[in-house]
Each structure stands twice: as C-alpha cells, then as structure tokens.
C-alpha cells in the first residue's frame, strides 16, 4: 500500500514563462478545479514537495535555480513540464538567452502540451505523474530492501 499518490505536494516554479501557463497552474488550485480534493497542496518549499511543476523555458539565469530546487527535493520526486515553452522553448526557443525546454537541465517525467496549457490538461498531467511517482517509490523501497 502506498500513500504517496494520495498526498502529492506540489512546488510550482516559473522558469521564464509569459505568465500564461503560470496562472493556469494557479487556476487549478482555485475553488473551480480544487486540486486539494486529491490531497494536492501547493507548498512553495522544495523540501516538502513531491511534484515539481515548471512553466516556461529555461534561460541562463533560471538554470541554476531550477537545478538547485530539483536537487533539494527528497526522493521520490517527479517533474512535470507545463506548456509548450517548458517542453521545447516554444515561441521563445530562438531567443539568445533561452536554453530550451526544462529537459535541458533536469530530467522531465511528464510533458503537458498547450499554449497556454488548460487546467484540465495540467490536472491530467499531474495524475499521470502520480503513476510514475508510485513506480519510483516502489523502486526506491526495493533498493532499500536490497541494502539491508
């Protein structure tokens, strides 16, 4: 029995998005979509988080921040790239300071399409991420069992 899928806490970071995807992520937490009914809470603290939601492409300045935030999260953890910018750089990909999608810095588990990504597809992406989270947890527990 695993509880990690029943209480995934989210940290949300805005790489260099136009704020379009950003407000959609926050819309998920408002009464209309009410993510909290799935036990999802927006923490703002990487050490408490299980799911890392990133919007926007990664630029030279946010690279270190994203990497640092990702590394502070305790295992198991998943990364969800929200919006086209986060998956590939989107309309900004030709800019001189943009490195591209989130996967140029950290491994991404789920890509959510859309510009801006709709709340429904964000929720869908998070739910798919939960399956991956559970798989990671099982693997982690197995490895710990082997060590002992």
């Amino acid at each position, binding site marked *: 029995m*695993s*509880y*990690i899928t*029943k*209480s995934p*806490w989210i940290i949300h970071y805005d790489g260099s998005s136009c704020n379009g995807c950003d407000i959609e992520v926050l819309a998920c937490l408002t*009464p209309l979509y*009410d993510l*909290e*009914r*799935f*036990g999802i*809470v*927006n*923490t*703002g*603290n990487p*050490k*408490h988080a*299980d799911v890392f939601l990133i919007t926007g492409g990664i630029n030279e300045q946010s690279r270190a921040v994203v990497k640092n935030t990702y590394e502070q999260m*305790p*295992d*198991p953890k998943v990364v969800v790239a929200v919006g086209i910018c986060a998956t590939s750089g989107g309309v900004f990909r030709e800019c001189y300071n943009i490195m591209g999608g989130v996967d140029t810095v950290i491994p991404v588990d789920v890509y959510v399409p859309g510009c801006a990504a709709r709340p429904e597809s964000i929720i869908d992406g998070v739910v798919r991420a939960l399956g991956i989270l559970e798989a990671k*947890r099982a693997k*982690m*527990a197995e490895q710990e069992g082997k060590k002992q």
Partner: protein
Amino acid sequence: MIEEIIFAIGFIILAPFIGALIGGIDRKVTARMQGRVGPPVLQPLYDIFKLFEKEKAVVRNEVNFYIFSYLIFVVFTGALFFSGGDILLVIFALTLAHAFLILGAYAAVSPYSHVGAERELLQLMAVEPMLILAATGFYMATGSFAVKDIALWPEPVVLTIPLIFVGIVYVLTIKLRKSPFDLATTHHAHQELVKGLTTEFAGPTLGMVEIAHLYETVFFLGIVWLFFASMPWVGLAAVIVVYFLEILVDNTTTRVRWQVMLRSAWLVALVAGAINLGVLALL
C-alpha cells in the same frame, strides 16, 4: 493507579487518530467555507504516511534528535494530563517540548528556519502567562493542581473562572497554529516565512512534527474540556463549538504581526487573569 495508566496508554494510542480526524474535518469544513469540496477526511493520516515513505534527508543529524525529543515530550505532556497528573508539570513539559522544537529549527542552519524559530519563541512567550494563570485559576477554584481532582470537582469549573476560559480560548488560536496567529508555521502548507519553522524538515522528520501536532490538538481540546468536566457531554459540545470558532477565525482573518500577537495575548492574560483571580481572592 491502574486506571491512570490505562488513561495514559489510551491517550498515546488513540490521540493521533482522533487528532487526524479532527484535522481532516477541519480541512473539509475549511474547504466548504471557501466553496470547495476539500480532501478526504483521513487526509492528515495519508500525509503523514506519505512523509514516512520519503527519503530521509536532513540538514544535520542533531535535528532528528531534537524533533524526536519534541514528539516524546508532547506525548508525555498529553499522557500526564489525561492520567490526571499535576497541571503545573503538564505545562512545564509542554514548554520543554517546544524548546526542543525551537532547538531543532535552530540546528537546521537556514535563515528561514531561524526566523521560524524566533517566531516560535515569541509564540511561546505570548502563551505562557495565560497557561500559568489558568493553572492558578484551577487551583483557586478547586484547591488542587491535580488534573484528576479538577476533573472530579462536582460543578463545572468554568462557572468560577469564566474569564480564564475566554483567555484560554484566545491563546488556543496561537497554540493550534491558526490564523491570525500562525506566525511560526501552520499545518496547512502556506509558503516561505509562514512555513518557517519546518522549512528545513523533510520526509520522516516533518512527519514527526505532524504527529506531534495531532497529539497537541487533542491535548489542548482536553484542556477546554476540563473546564466543563463535571458535565462531560456539555464539555464535548463546548469543545466542538470552540474548535468550530477556531476554524471560522482561521478562515476570516489575515495574519498579524508578532507585536500584535504578543501584546494582545498578554493583555488578554492580564485582564482576564487579573479580574478573575482578583474576584476569586476577594470572595
């Protein structure tokens, strides 16, 4: 003696579940007040189980020792209270527990957790006078510091010390970490500074803090009940009303500065305590 041990063990086993249930209903009611559906009632338990599934990441190993001591002393406080022990000892054990929590936050070197630790110290300072006055009030009303004697007192203590009851309900908001006094940390995942104290705790360490919070909730509601102990059902109703009020206040107020918290808590303690104890002393 046997009875007391049974009560203590009963508290140790049952309190986390009762606390989680209260917390779950709290979140459900809060959600309804905001026009949402809200998480399942058992959500606090899921959260804690999840935290123990996570990686054991800790800044320094001392932190775990301090937080574990915090948990142990909170459990001790509650067990002592429900087994009818000395109420002064109960209050001191509670203070010691929080001293460990603060040490834990200080040991996790980080500006956020230091700010949280300082705020927790201020909360402790704000609450302590009222708790001591409450113990004095119980003594003047019943002639005993033992929780057992107070609970067996033939009439509700609240009739003798109504103002002290008001004062306790006031500081309860601070102790249950509810808005407007959720300065050091809340059990809801607010952000940055508000999560201050627990910013650096992850996985099982945070889980221990959460469990301690469940024990604390039950313990404080026990104190509210003690004011009505001779009429148990009225006491239960009072606990429900008081907790509902806490949720209402939590949802309708914004956070205040620490100065306001400290001054208002001391003012309430001074006014409620002094008037009530003064009248009792004159009678």
